[in-house]
Every structure is written in structure tokens, then in C-alpha cells.
């Protein structure tokens, strides 16, 4: 035991510092290692060496954490606004959005029905009934981009298990931020999307006059990241050197904003130019209305890799039915849109990927351990 009032000797300081340094380095290396595995799998789907085994839609259970300031009741958005966002997602990801008809003819064949649907959770992590909406009152006037909204210790709401639920946090965001996401491979306690309440759904605070982000597309965009999609311009600061690792989206220089006019040519991508109506560009909500087949391949790689738990898991309603009648167990996988044999294959795949990731992490840890001896 050490007296709390006694300052530790310098050597201990150094040791503590090194521990923190090593932890951060290890976490970073772990993330990088997992990202490498995830990108390798995405590439195999992109080039056709692997293809999706999914048959029919997958349903992602969603929990919406509404984190509202004590003195700001408008931040406590109502159920209708939450439901309006779920409706948008189920239109956008199924190519059932009315404005999909505005896709230019040259890209109409590329429009993807991703066969991904979203439902508010009906069971909480303990199996208790829920409406899938968690409400938290906070003393904080708002949150920045540093994940504070994701923990009750920092005035936010703790996530539900990220291998079973897509966590969405809705709050007041600072600095004019609309929202942000995590790519697959992030630590589970940070996994999910954060959306400013004025840009969530289509009613309530999102329906303010003059709001160009009033159609729920911020959440569509962020979930695109959650399913491992990159920005369509490749995040290369206006250069043409990098793209989004999707072949059927033209390489473009930088983000488009507002409501561009077709065609908008950059990076010698004429005559059709930028696919600025893609959900992964930065246009106004009314200006984005499509995912492509190539983007769907990346999403499938993610769903059958890093996020395979959503395919393999039994739907909550199905689980309830199984508890009542064990004979329905055999149908659970099919109801999820994946044939039974494929569930097993996906589980094997997931296990293999985990093993590979652990191998990489061990290698990285050995490197760090070797370094620390100096």
C-alpha cells in the first residue's frame, strides 16, 4: 500500500508514463491491426474473390440514446422524431426513398438496395421489454467530437453491447458539427454514431425552417461509415490521389456541398463527373439519394466480417418465440436472411478473423515489449 499523500519517486513516474504510453500504443496498434483485416476483407469482396452469402434483408436492432440538457427541453426530442429517422433509414438503405428517381440515367443501374433494415430494439440487454429509446438528462450544455456523450461518467449515456445493437446518440453538438461515426474496429464502448438533434429524423427540431439537413440523411451517411464506407472523394484534401476504395463511384477531388448541378467534373472524371448525389458526399440532405453496388459490396464485407454478430445473432422477436417453442430454433437463421449453413460459415469466418487479429496484436505487443526494454 502507498500513502496517497506521498508523491511517487521519479522512477515510478517514468514507469507510469511508460505504461500509459504502451497502453495507447497498443490500443492504436490493435485498431490498426483490426483495420488491416477489415480492409483486406473489403478488398476481397470488391475484386470478387468473396461474395455475400446473405439472402434477404438483415435487421439491425437500434438503441437511440437521447441525451438532453436539463435546461433545454427541446433537446429531448419526442418519439415521433426518433421514429421518423428509422423510417428514413429503411427507405434509404432499401432504395425505397422517393427521390431515388432523381439519380442521373448514367448511374441508375448502380443504385443499390442494400437489404439492410433498422428497427428500434424491443428487448434491452437484460432481455426486458423496451421501446429502444433511452432518455438521459445531462448538466452539460452540449458535446463536442470527443466521445463524451458515450459515457454516463461524462454526462452522456453508456452504450448497449455494440455486437448486438447499433448505438445512436442524439444530443446538442458543438462547433456546427452535424454528426460523427466510428468505423468498424473501434473499441466497443465507442462504437456507434452521434447525431445532432436538429439533424436527426424529419420532424420536431429537425423541421426548423431553413434547415438544409432536415431529411435524416446525416444518420444515413454516418451509418455508411459504421458499415465501413469512406467519403466518396477519398479524404485527400482536394487531390485526386486517393479514392473511396469503391470502383463504381468516380474518383472526385473534394467534397461537394449544398446542391450541385449535374455534371460536376473534377479529377478528369468527365463526362459524368462527381457522383455528388451519393450519401457519402457532403451535399445538403435533399441532394443525396443513392448508395452504389460497389458500396454495398463493402457493406456486405463488413456485415459478414467485423459486424457478423448482427447476421449470426437471433432476432429478438425470434429469440422470444424460441424460448416459447424450442422447435423454431432451426428457422432463426433463415428469418435473419441468412441460410442456416451460411450462419455457421459466417461464424467460422468471424472466428478466423478474430484469430488473425489476435495474432497481429500479439506481434505488435512483442514489438512494443522489445522496444520498452531499451
Amino acid at each position: 500500500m502507498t500513502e496517497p499523500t506521498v508523491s511517487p519517486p521519479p522512477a515510478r513516474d517514468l514507469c507510469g508514463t511508460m505504461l500509459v504510453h504502451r497502453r495507447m500504443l497498443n490500443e492504436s496498434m490493435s485498431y490498426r491491426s483490426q483495420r488491416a483485416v477489415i480492409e483486406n476483407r473489403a478488398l476481397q469482396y470488391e475484386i470478387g474473390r468473396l461474395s455475400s452469402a446473405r439472402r434477404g434483408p438483415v435487421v439491425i436492432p437500434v438503441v437511440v440514446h437521447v441525451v438532453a440538457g436539463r435546461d433545454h427541453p427541446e433537446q429531448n426530442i419526442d418519439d415521433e422524431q426518433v421514429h421518423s429517422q428509422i423510417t428514413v433509414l429503411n427507405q434509404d438503405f432499401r432504395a425505397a426513398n422517393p427521390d431515388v428517381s432523381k439519380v442521373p440515367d448514367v448511374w441508375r443501374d448502380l443504385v443499390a438496395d442494400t437489404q439492410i433494415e433498422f428497427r428500434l430494439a424491443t428487448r434491452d440487454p437484460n432481455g426486458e421489454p423496451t421501446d429502444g429509446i433511452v432518455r438521459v438528462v445531462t448538466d452539460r450544455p452540449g458535446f463536442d467530437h470527443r466521445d463524451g456523450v458515450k459515457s454516463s461518467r461524462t454526462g452522456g449515456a453508456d452504450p448497449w453491447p455494440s455486437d448486438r445493437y447499433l448505438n445512436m446518440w442524439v444530443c446538442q453538438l458543438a462547433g456546427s458539427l452535424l454528426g460523427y461515426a466510428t468505423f468498424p474496429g473501434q473499441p466497443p464502448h465507442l462504437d456507434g454514431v452521434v447525431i445532432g438533434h436538429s439533424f436527426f429524423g424529419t420532424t420536431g427540431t429537425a423541421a426548423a425552417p431553413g434547415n438544409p439537413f432536415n431529411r435524416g440523411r446525416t444518420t444515413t451517411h454516418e451509418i455508411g461509415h459504421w458499415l465501413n464506407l469512406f467519403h466518396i472523394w477519398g479524404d485527400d484534401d482536394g487531390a485526386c490521389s486517393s479514392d473511396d476504395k469503391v470502383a463504381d463511384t468516380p474518383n472526385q477531388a473534394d467534397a461537394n456541398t449544398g446542391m450541385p448541378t449535374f455534371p460536376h467534373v473534377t479529377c478528369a472524371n468527365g463526362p459524368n463527373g462527381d457522383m455528388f448525389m451519393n450519401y457519402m458526399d457532403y451535399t445538403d440532405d435533399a441532394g443525396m439519394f443513392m448508395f452504389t453496388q460497389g458500396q454495398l459490396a463493402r457493406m456486405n464485407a463488413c456485415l459478414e466480417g467485423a459486424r457478423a454478430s448482427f447476421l449470426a445473432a437471433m432476432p429478438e422477436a425470434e429469440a422470444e418465440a424460441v424460448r416459447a417453442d424450442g422447435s423454431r430454433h432451426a428457422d432463426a437463421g433463415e428469418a435473419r436472411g441468412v441460410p442456416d449453413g451460411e450462419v455457421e460459415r459466417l461464424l467460422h469466418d468471424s472466428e478466423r478473423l478474430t484469430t488473425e487479429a489476435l495474432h497481429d496484436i500479439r506481434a505488435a505487443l512483442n514489438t512494443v515489449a522489445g522496444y520498452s526494454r531499451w
Partner: protein
Amino acid sequence: MSGEPPDVVGAWLHSHEEDTETAAVYRPADHPFRPSRRPRRGLEFRADGTFTDLRPGPDDRPREVPGRWRDEGGGRLRITFPAGDGAPSDLSVISCADGVLMIAK
């Protein structure tokens, strides 16, 4: 710029809507900015000489790049980063008053 060095200590976000042909306009991070899907570039100057460059990131939030800053006089600020995080750069402060930081483009 001459006289007292500019007091730029604080967190600033790019108010690109207010840019002129020659100046980039920054305002304090708590300014009621217009919503923007593109994350705003940010500059955080601390009194101890540390600096954070907030650059638009691939997940829609600013990516924080830590560095250091020093006042070189005449309104010039020298920004440096650890190796691999970016080349040193100079910022030329045109003015910093009344909650508006103007930097030469």
C-alpha cells in the same frame, strides 16, 4: 502587424462563410456557427506553447494533430509538428480582436 503580439490563445474554428479573398476568418469555438456537414478546420493555441490543429477527418469529426506554436513577432506564428505529422508552417495574423481572428491566406 506591429506593437503588442496578437493574443490568439484559445480555440478557434474556421468561419469559412466569412472568408475574404485575402483572409481566412476564425471565430471562437463557442460561436453560434451555421451548421456545416464539412467539419470546420480548427486551431487551438494554448498559453504553454502547445497547439492542436483540427483537420477534417474521415469519420466526420475533426482529427486532432498536436504540435507547438510560438510568436515570431510581426504577427507571424510558427507552427511545428512532431515528425510525420506535417511540415512546419507559418501563420500570418492580420488581426485578432472582438472575437475574430483573421489569418492571411
